[in-house]
């Protein structure tokens, strides 16, 4: 199973600033291993963040997002103590959801 994300959600300048690190290989599918065999693509295709049941960010990714991806965005309305959930889904159908409390 995939390792947990690191999510930081902090109120800054009247908005909730969210920084997310995800543990993922983001394999492009264009590389070959030591024996010359292609390494299959394995990468996150979707990321969505929800707060109070509302999607506050939805992203589609390709293979060019760096290994162990980082994502930062900000949204309005969140209050201290409320939670945000982040879910990623990769091209193999694997997914992971983690939650963080707004600080």
């Amino acid at each position, binding site marked *: 199973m995939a390792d947990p994300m*690191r999510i*930081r959600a902090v109120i800054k300048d009247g908005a909730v600033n969210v*920084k997310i*690190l995800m543990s993922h290989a983001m394999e492009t599918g264009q*590389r*070959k291993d030591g024996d010359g065999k292609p390494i299959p693509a394995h990468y996150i295709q979707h990321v969505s963040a929800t707060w109070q049941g509302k999607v506050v960010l939805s992203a589609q990714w390709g*293979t060019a997002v760096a290994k*162990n991806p980082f994502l930062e965005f900000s949204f309005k309305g969140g209050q201290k103590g409320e939670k945000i959930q982040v879910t990623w889904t990769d091209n193999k159908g694997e997914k992971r959801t983690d939650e963080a409390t707004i600080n």
Partner: protein
Amino acid sequence: MSSIKLRAVLALSGLVLACAAHAQQKEAAAPKKTAAPVKKAASAPKDAVTADFDKFREVMEDASPAELFEAKGEELWKTRRGPKNASLEQCDLGLGPGILKGAYVRMPRYFADAGEVMDVERRIVYCMVTLQGYKAEDLAKQPFSSESRTPDPVSLVTYVAGQSRGMKIAIPQKHAKEREAYNVGREIFNFRAGAWDFSCASCHGEDGKRIRTQELPNLTSKKDAIRAFQGWPGYRMTGGLMHTLQWRMNDCFRQQRFPEPGYASETIADLLTYMGVNANGQVYKGPGIKR
């Protein structure tokens, strides 16, 4: 001792996305392809380039992938594991069992229970053996990160290091064994041998030197000594792997044309004592990002 590594572009020919990034196993003999882009960088004004690197390095260190390994390490630290089904929470890193804050910046140090000077990784391995029942030989088999796995001690060291973020390096020299480790470490640092007559000092004993475009810290000087410590454990952008100082020392000895040092050996502990003590008093910023 970090000589330019020419990434295995050839070994991975046919690879369209030549993100050197990922091609990290072997050095290749074809410098042209890899050297070319470096020229562009080198021809730009050096200071501006370095300033730009530093700026974005700072941005990235604010949310460093190293944090993922800290999180993993924390989980490993607190989970009951191993043949003895124990957590590492009773592991004494020098400040008492389970006390992590400030432990990293006070190592290597002498541990009476082991009768030895130990750096953080040597100590964690010791705890994994004594508390959890793992075998030291097993832990030494594949001790460095690869694409397929991050060894547990690597994540654990990263976690422990993160607990000393922003603290001053204060490696003790009170115990006779600690002073001896420093002196022996200094001799290891200066010991020339091998096919190319290199010692650590061949590359890291003078100010302002470079290998290719890579600047070399003078690890014998107070001013530069921190650079041996800072940024480690480090997330290497090339390959996206987490590495500790054990790996750094290992790869330095490889490029020194030496045989391979034992993982978490006393040799490495003493060498790290010498380099670490020289950096005493400087602030450790926590696990970092390496190129």
